[in-house]
């Protein structure tokens, strides 16, 4: 090796070494000078939260929720994904008591399958509920489910699927994030507190008079008020009963009279299936989801035409 090469190489190596040493001092100084104090509780909370970033708590993501808990004293029970164990963990970190809460889950206020809805017409347009909702005459009922499955599309947890035109919620995976309720153009999905594994739901959204309802649906609520007379938890709002879920006590309430008196099939039980249900349906097959055979994409690139 020629001496000149050795000089050049060692010069270069020396310069790099010098730079590295100088830089490490700069970085070390910056680390101290620009240090941001993060409350260790926020980090701890973050570790307890499931990290689904679903927005079910009302914050943009898990980190924002942690910050809200620690800095603004937000309630520790808002995470629908983590549930009770998560709330307990958060309560331990914050040194507070967990108040009694219930997981909110989606319920569908329409139970009419395609064959039970009347005045249905052929429709060739865009196959989404949002598009069908701005057109009249697809089906007689202007309140009930359209059956194109926007809610199925919106669910990130595979907790809702269409069965003969009505969405059915699978309550085990349902985290209560509310995405389905938000996307439904007819607002027939609401979130209710599940105080037991099975909840009673008024499965109709049609607010018209009984005679009008009968023209468009074979099972719709006619507003006969029988349930309100059978049980105090039902009150009429317009031509539809509403169930007071705040006063709903699973141990004390007996709905059998109301269920008995409902002439239509407007009161249904939903929830996690019991052992008997599983036994009765174990041989059934879950239908495959039907996908459209074309795909149109849209991207964020600017139009340059």
């Amino acid at each position: 090796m020629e001496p000149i090469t050795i000089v050049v190489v060692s010069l270069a190596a020396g310069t790099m070494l010098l730079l590295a040493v100088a830089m490490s001092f700069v970085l070390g100084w910056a680390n101290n000078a620009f240090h941001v104090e993060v409350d260790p509780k926020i980090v701890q909370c973050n570790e307890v939260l499931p990290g689904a970033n679903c927005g079910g708590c009302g914050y943009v993501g898990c980190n924002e929720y942690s910050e809200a808990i620690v800095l603004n004293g937000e309630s520790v029970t808002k995470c629908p994904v983590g549930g009770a164990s998560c709330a307990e963990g958060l309560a331990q970190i914050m040194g507070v008591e967990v108040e009694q809460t219930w997981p909110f889950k989606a319920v569908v206020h329409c139970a009419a399958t395609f064959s039970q809805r009347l005045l249905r017409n052929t429709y060739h347009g865009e196959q989404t509920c949002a598009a069908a909702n701005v057109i009249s005459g697809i089906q007689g009922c202007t309140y009930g489910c359209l059956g194109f499955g926007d809610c199925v599309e919106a669910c990130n947890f595979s907790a809702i699927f269409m069965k003969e035109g009505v969405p059915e919620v699978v309550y085990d995976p349902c985290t209560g994030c509310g995405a389905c309720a938000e996307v439904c153009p007819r607002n027939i999905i609401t979130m209710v507190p599940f105080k037991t594994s099975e909840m009673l739901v008024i499965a109709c959204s049609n607010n018209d008079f009984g005679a009008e309802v009968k023209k468009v649906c074979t099972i719709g609520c006619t507003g006969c008020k029988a349930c309100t007379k059978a049980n105090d938890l039902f009150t009429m709002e317009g031509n539809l009963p509403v169930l007071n879920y705040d006063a709903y006590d699973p141990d004390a309430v007996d709905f059998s009279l109301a269920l008995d008196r409902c002439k239509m099939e407007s009161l249904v039980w939903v929830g996690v299936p019991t052992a008997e249900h599983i036994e009765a349906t174990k041989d059934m097959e879950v239908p495959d989801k039907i996908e459209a055979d074309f795909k149109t994409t849209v991207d964020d690139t600017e139009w340059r035409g």
Partner: protein
Amino acid sequence: MSASPLSTTGPGTFPRGIHPPEAKELSASGKIEVLPTPKEVKIALLQHTGAPCEAIHKPRTEVEAGAMVGSSEAFVSAPVHSPIAGKTAKTCSVTLPNGRHVPAVPIKATGEQLEGDALFEEIFGGEWPTSGLERYSADEIRTATREAGIVGLGGAAFPTHVKFAVNPEKPIDTLLINGCECEPYLNADNRLMIEAPMPMISGTMLAARAIGAEQMVIAIEDNKPEAIAAARKAAEGSPVRIQPVKTKYPMGGEKQLIPAALGRIVPTGGLPLDVGVVVMNVGTATAVARAILRGKPLTHRVVSVSGRGIVSPKNILAPVGATYQELIDLADGLTPDAARVIAGGPMMGFALGELDTPITKGTSGIVVLTEAEVRERNETNCVRCGHCVDVCPLHLVPTRIALASRARNWDLAKRYHMMACMECGCCSYACPAGIPLVQLIRTGKASAPRA
């Protein structure tokens, strides 16, 4: 083309747009027939853009023909009147073709009714002066227009007295009367201009007085030579100018008609009054004349019942609140291969599911298409051919907006001015891939968050 805001004539056309088959010949020569008084009419309490009316009378009240049955305190609203003498019944609800679920007052016909030619004569007959109208003040005309429940009869049903409320910062110098009727099949305005041009001229002059416009122009598409001739004859000796414009869809859109007839350009997101113009339909002008000179409310309108799915296409003078079925029955019913009934024209109308629906003030036509005409189009990928861009009369990029709407990407859709779309349907008509562009854009406009 001069785009100066003070320009008074235009080139007679606008850039872009389409030429769908006109199919006007089906009902063009059919003289307006009067619908026999129905046994019952259902007066929808929301027939216009704006606040809904409240029913005035208790059930089982006797009302005369022309009596007000619903009104509202709100400014952007128009009262509704009974077209027949009869007895009111309990308020029911009806679903209008646009999907709105609204309350309606049913009125059962009782006693003597004005029928047939006598009714036609009562509405359009008699003297319609074009001079001496100075004795009606602008305020009087505005109040009478509101009392008569007049709304835009072109289809959107915007309350006319709201258009008459002048904004001092934006003076109006021109009243443009829209006699284009660019939708295929429809002939309601065409026949009205041919058979009753005089009230239209009087109404134009009265409306111009209400808004303080000096220039009055009636624009008519050149595929209606009879209407142009009739209007010219009626306008002789009056300051109203008849301006023929080229036949093109959507010439009847105000943002297309104003550049074509006057040479002024309405800014995106703006209104005609930004360039000193108010646009009104010919039927509305006629209704204004009747309201001021005769003191009669808007209770009847001309409806074109046409299409190859109708046995004998006709133009019918019908009371508001009669059902679609009754009008179709007068036109001898549907053909065996009738497949789809559309309320309004085929381009912007709404498919109708239930024929037992009452017509409203905004119903300009009923078009029935046959099996062969409504065959399903299979959607394929967008090939970026740009046909929709070539035809969009508002210079938008429909494919981008529609696909952004399908992906629920509202920011992107709004960046492409989704809200400026007037849903004329040119893009869907032109799309070779069969993408329901205008439906996707409509969906987007309905579901995108406001603000």
